[in-house]
């Protein structure tokens, strides 16, 4: 284990917290077509989105977002051809989107994700749900729903590894822009 030890709750606990917090967005009197669309950001956010989708609305659409092409540091990071391409439900116009990611840090991933979503259509609303908010934002983006907020020493990163099992680890100064 690198860096300072910070006690992290189990991923299951955090996903359960997020699931409970998101349930009110899915009133049972709405048909699946009128309910929000869950979209996970590759790779960690999608793993969480899958679990939440299974728990709340297994019959609804589930979207996957690969934001590589939209990163503001693309020329530095390059492509990751192993990451699966984006696949969003065909029509997101006027829909509510629950956008899910594992870690919220600089905010740049979310900015890129929103840029990409708007290339698919114009959603009515985007709700941002995050497993872990670790602070140190570089742009003014905040989550609507957060399972856990932690403080990390600058230069350290928290990373979700998986998919089986899902596990949070803290790494010191490893390249992981989020």
């Amino acid at each position, binding site marked *: 284990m690198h860096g300072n030890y910070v006690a992290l709750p189990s991923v299951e606990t955090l996903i359960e917290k997020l699931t409970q917090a998101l349930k009110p967005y899915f009133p049972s009197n709405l048909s699946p077509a009128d309910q929000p669309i869950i979209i996970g950001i590759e790779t960690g956010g999608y793993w969480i989105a899958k679990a939440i989708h299974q728990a709340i609305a297994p019959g609804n659409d589930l979207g996957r977002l690969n934001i590589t092409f939209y990163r503001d540091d693309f020329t530095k990071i*390059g492509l990751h051809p192993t990451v699966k*391409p984006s696949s969003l439900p065909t029509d997101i116009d006027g829909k509510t989107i629950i956008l899910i990611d594992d870690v919220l840090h600089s905010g740049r991933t979310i900015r890129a994700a929103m840029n990409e979503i708007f290339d698919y259509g114009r959603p009515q609303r985007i709700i941002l749900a995050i497993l872990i908010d670790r602070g140190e934002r570089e742009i003014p983006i905040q989550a609507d729903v957060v399972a856990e907020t932690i403080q990390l020493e600058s230069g350290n990163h928290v990373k979700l590894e998986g998919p089986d099992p899902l596990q949070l680890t803290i790494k010191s100064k490893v390249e992981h822009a989020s």
Partner: protein
Amino acid sequence: MPANNLQLDENGKLQHFLSIEGLNQKILTEILDTAGTFTSVTDRVIKKVPILRGKTVANLFFEASTRTRSTFELAEQRLSADILTLNVDTSATVKGESLLDTIHNLEAMQIDMFVIRHKDSGSAHFFAQHVRPGVSVLNAGDGQHEHPTQAMLDMYTIRHHKQDFTRLRVAIVGDIMHSRVARSQIHALNLLNTAEIRVIAPRTLLPVDTESLGVQLYDDLEQGLLDVDVVIMLRLQKERMRGALLPSEKEYFNQFGLTQERLNRAKPDAIVMHPGPANRGVEIESSVMDGNQSVILQQVGFGISVRMAVMSMIVGRSGLQASE
């Protein structure tokens, strides 16, 4: 043509795309995988991603082209580049100083990437040697040398339909001698470990070094097509022929034209490809070209994704290891 190391930077990443020769299997596979992620962009409401935003790409076509030019342009636009296309008509041989002048003039306009087609073999390589550091060159066909993006879109099409190259028997039929496409295809098929590559052509249309490329030679179409998985037809390049290489087009069709009857000797699920433009009734029968084994129009669409992939890899080359 020693284009080999010029194409890769010190980390082994693509910085120019000049020829398949000199590349490795890892890069080819990365191009195919990356192209796969771009096919989804084409299905969206806004068919654009911002990878080349703020970059300027110049398409220099010293030789006529419709398909290659337009798919390059679309690929660039879908990557959000600003583009400039010059169709430079050249009756006299343009090389040496005048080509250098072209480069320097365009460089003064802050071009980031050049796509070049020229009738002289080696011209893209020449261009790449003389551009400023950081500027990239893509070969869109140089003389009878190579046409690497065409070969990669062909590989993409084959993989899309047949997956594993190591079990495939691929036949390339026709005017091998004048075909930069065939040269690039043969290199690519070899790098991807294709089980068997057959070249089927009249002896007069085979270059002398063909056998050294690791292919089986056939001068009889019916024998050559037996049990193949993929049939790639080439265009008879009348404009490049000098002297009496062929008796007549009709005679050529009689011996080397792809008819349904001949195609039936290939495997039942064999696919038929053609880089275009095709001469109906010369190298391929109309009904085969429009038939259900033909994937010719699909190739055109895949050409956009493959060209997007190559350009993205070049722009993103300073990135971390792709496996991270």
